[in-house]
């Protein structure tokens, strides 16, 4: 009977998404499934957090905390939503807390401490020239400043919409608000970004 119930839960989760099924396996004590989830979502979580806090060390530290929380919650995990919704809910919560804690930091400090991005789209197979590099850095700085200037929730919504390609309904679940509220957040955020970045075309 217990096995039957377990199978039913597993089937429902599989219908929901494969990640949820993996998480149910973690719940049953399968450490390898945790490894699969980590491999699959490590980059997107770190990159999302990086774009939120704009500091690599802090982003990786927060991402470690995200996966620690996932692991720690394994025994109480229920696949009531998509796994990534739950994952990004934890990530967003931690990022917003980190931003609130560090509110007194000067914006300049956050932006200047990290110059690890490099031009990845090169116009030819040669290394970019110094001039190209400087142009890229200047554009990048403008993008980063524009994103940083957004209110935190708008920033999270844009990052999930743009880079994670999430649907409005999923972003709404992550941010615990209605779908129409998400649409409104995004509309205002892109309005601000258009005003600041449209000249870059």
């Amino acid at each position, binding site marked *: 009977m217990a096995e039957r119930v377990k199978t039913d839960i597993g089937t429902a989760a599989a219908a929901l998404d494969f990640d949820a099924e993996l998480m149910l396996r973690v719940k049953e*004590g399968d450490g390898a499934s945790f490894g699969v989830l980590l491999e699959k979502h490590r980059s997107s979580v770190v990159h999302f957090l990086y774009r939120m806090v704009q500091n690599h060390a802090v982003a990786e530290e927060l991402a470690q905390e995200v996966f620690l929380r996932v692991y720690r919650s394994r025994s109480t995990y229920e696949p009531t939503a998509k796994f990534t919704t739950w994952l990004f809910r934890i990530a967003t919560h931690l990022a917003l807390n980190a931003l609130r804690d560090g509110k007194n930091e000067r914006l300049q400090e956050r932006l200047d401490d990290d110059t690890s991005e490099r031009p990845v789209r090169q116009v030819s197979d040669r290394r970019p020239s110094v001039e190209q590099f400087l142009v890229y850095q200047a554009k990048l700085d403008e993008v980063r400043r524009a994103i940083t200037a957004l209110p935190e929730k708008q920033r999270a919504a844009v990052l999930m919409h743009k880079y994670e390609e999430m649907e409005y309904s999923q972003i709404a679940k992550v941010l615990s608000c209605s779908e129409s509220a998400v649409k409104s957040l995004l509309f205002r955020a892109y309005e601000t*970004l258009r005003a600041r970045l449209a000249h870059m075309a």
Partner: protein
Amino acid sequence: MNCPLETRENAQLLLDYCTRKLEPESVATLERHIAICGACREFARSQRAVWEALDAWQTAPVSADFDSRLYRRIEGQVSWWDVLLRPFRPPFSTATMWRSLPAAAAACLLLMAGVLLEHRAVAPAPAPNDMAQVDSVQPEQVERTLDAMEMLNEFSHHVRTDSPDSKL
């Protein structure tokens, strides 16, 4: 069609169009309007510029030792997590319970014997809270600890076989 920029709700359609999230059937209608509406054309142009600017923002790869650092932290925290999370955990499934019952029973007996000896040696009559603590040493808790140890073995294996090349 009316200009979508006249209302926020319809302007949303234009945004969806620019971010390639509009259903194909609405795309054709909207494109016919954009062809004759300067305001919408400007909206679409500037939104595409934003999209491309955001595209250019690539981030550095994740550190090669990210996983090993994480597994070390998990290893370091597993014992007290188990204690902290004990009250919130649901009971284990009957099947899992039966599989490890002999080990759990043996460990439980050892723990209870230890608790009783300690009480006999130093403690006066136990307060109600102490009793609750003694009662809370359950086979499930022992089994969870054994489960966690099993998972740690798997994690250790992961860390050993984890190659930095496997990551981005």
